[in-house]
């Protein structure tokens, strides 16, 4: 083993570490990606210079074909389709691991007729198993996101049992493969089994959970690379693979938390089956879109104009101080923040004024309904805090409504509306509010003060 090549591999490993570290921060992410690609280049270069001249051509051809395909996909794909492309790439990586392990095994056992030692054998089996699962799992994820396979969770009874049996079968096959190296059937059977398992594990998962699945499969593909490293006795493969495997698990965990699921749930493959909001209200049910605090924070991060609409719920939650903090934070990010004060918001004339003054919100940010009502249409985001009747479009559209004829804030005209309240509970007038079911309306359930405090926390990290 050439020492210079090893040092190059070491350098590549370090660059991968630094690269991943930097990818975790907005300000350094791009540089991190560059450093990691530099590491990859070094690793490849150090490997290529070792190859015999005769195979160099083959290798170059393969690399050129691969690069062309990779670049083509990377630059042609629409940005909205990124997750599925990541899934696809990831699948290729997994398949590559499987293939390399199989090739090495084939070469040694079938073509050279050698015995391989147990450790290498086990590594090959792991490589094949994980690589295979990664490949078909990623492929299904890709197809689901692409709409080519139903995004819904496809479930059938005994699913978990079948998966378990298949896994046992895979282990059994591996054991046979290890006891009799001369017979390749078992390794091939393992490969096929792993492909089947990959499909079955991902099929029952709903489309909305796919990002988590992809992240997990990404972690798997790292582990596959690591196992390949053991097969080839290659450090850089081990380091890079272990890095991706471990950091991928953490990332998956973080993503789970952001989606309100547990990692155990994910690891068992049983996620994606419980769906939607848990808030059952009586009366004609309004289908609402719920949003989490993190996502809400990202929406806040992306807008340039914001109108906050406080209502009685703000007073009940005593959320005025939290709101001030939120508005200050938004202003620091150059978001134009105003407050729309409905004349009868709250339970006494001037209720909102008292509380917002207490929280030291400057008077010139408070805009009367009549003045601001035309501005909603040009506003990116409206944040409704514990208001209900005063933003109920029924007052304009439904002559049977008890509030018909009362002037209301035209919040629904804005690009996006986020409403924070504890539940689908009604307001003073005791009527349903169709705003909450509107296409551009997202519900952020919870006590206004607590929710906004969390929102502020999230926003600070962006």
């Amino acid at each position: 083993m050439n020492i210079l090549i090893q040092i190059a591999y070491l350098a590549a490993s370090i660059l991968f570490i630094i690269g991943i570290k930097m990818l975790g921060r907005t300000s350094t992410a791009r540089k991190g990606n560059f450093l990691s690609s530099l590491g990859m280049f070094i690793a490849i270069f150090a490997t290529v210079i070792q190859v015999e001249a005769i195979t160099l051509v083959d290798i170059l051809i393969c690399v050129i074909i691969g690069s062309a395909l990779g670049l083509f996909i990377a630059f042609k794909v629409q940005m909205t389709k990124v997750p599925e492309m990541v899934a696809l790439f990831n699948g290729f990586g997994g398949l590559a691991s499987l293939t390399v392990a199989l090739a090495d095994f084939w070469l040694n056992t079938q073509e050279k007729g050698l015995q391989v030692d147990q450790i290498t054998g086990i590594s090959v089996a792991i490589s094949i198993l994980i690589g295979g699962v990664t490949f078909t799992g990623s492929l299904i994820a890709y197809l689901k996101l692409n709409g080519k396979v139903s995004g819904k969770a496809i479930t059938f009874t005994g699913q978990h049992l079948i998966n378990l049996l298949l896994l046992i079968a895979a282990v059994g096959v591996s054991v046979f493969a290890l006891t009799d190296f001369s017979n390749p059937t078992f390794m091939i059977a393992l490969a096929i089994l792993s492909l089947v398992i990959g499909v079955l594990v991902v099929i029952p998962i709903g489309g909305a959970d796919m990002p988590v699945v992809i992240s997990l499969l990404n972690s798997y593909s790292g582990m596959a690379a690591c196992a390949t490293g053991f097969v080839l006795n290659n450090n850089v493969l081990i380091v890079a693979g272990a890095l991706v495997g471990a950091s991928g698990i953490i990332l998956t965990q973080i993503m789970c938390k952001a989606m309100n699921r547990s990692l155990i749930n994910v690891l068992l493959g049983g996620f994606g089956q419980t769906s939607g909001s848990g808030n059952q209200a009586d009366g004609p049910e309004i289908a609402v879109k719920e949003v989490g605090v993190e996502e809400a924070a990202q929406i806040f991060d992306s807008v340039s104009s914001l109108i906050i609409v406080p209502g009685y719920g703000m007073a009940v939650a005593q959320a005025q101080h939290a709101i001030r903090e939120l508005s200050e934070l938004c202003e620091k990010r150059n978001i134009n923040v105003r407050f729309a004060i409905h004349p009868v918001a709250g339970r006494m004339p001037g209720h909102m004024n008292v509380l917002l003054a207490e929280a030291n919100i400057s008077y010139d940010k408070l805009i009367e309904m009549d003045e601001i009502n035309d501005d909603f249409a040009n506003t990116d985001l409206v944040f409704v805090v514990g208001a209900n009747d005063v933003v109920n479009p029924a007052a304009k559209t439904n002559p049977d409504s008890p509030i018909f004829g009362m002037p209301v804030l035209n919040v629904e005209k804005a690009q996006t509306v986020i409403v924070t309240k504890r539940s689908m509970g009604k307001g003073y007038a005791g009527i349903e509010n169709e705003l909450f079911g509107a296409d551009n309306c997202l519900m952020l359930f919870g006590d206004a003060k607590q929710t906004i405090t969390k929102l502020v926390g999230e926003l600070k990290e962006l």
Partner: protein
Amino acid sequence: MTAESFIILLYILVLASYVGFELINKVPPTLHTPLMSGSNAISGITIVGAIIACNVLNYGAISKWLGMIALILATINVVGGYALTDRMLKMFKKK
């Protein structure tokens, strides 16, 4: 593989995994996808294995073909992965 070299590789595995765990702690949600994509590109390191496989194997043999397929796949993963990540990250240029 000897037990000794295995143990050493195990050291490396353990330490690298630990580093992986420590590396990521607070990632803003906006970076979840790029990070995933970027580390996916790194997992394309199998390309090194694929090259080595291609090199030692004999022409015409199944192993050779497998190696070459692996190489193409790994290259797609690596090149596409990095390019895609970079494209994504370009859009984050803040305000």
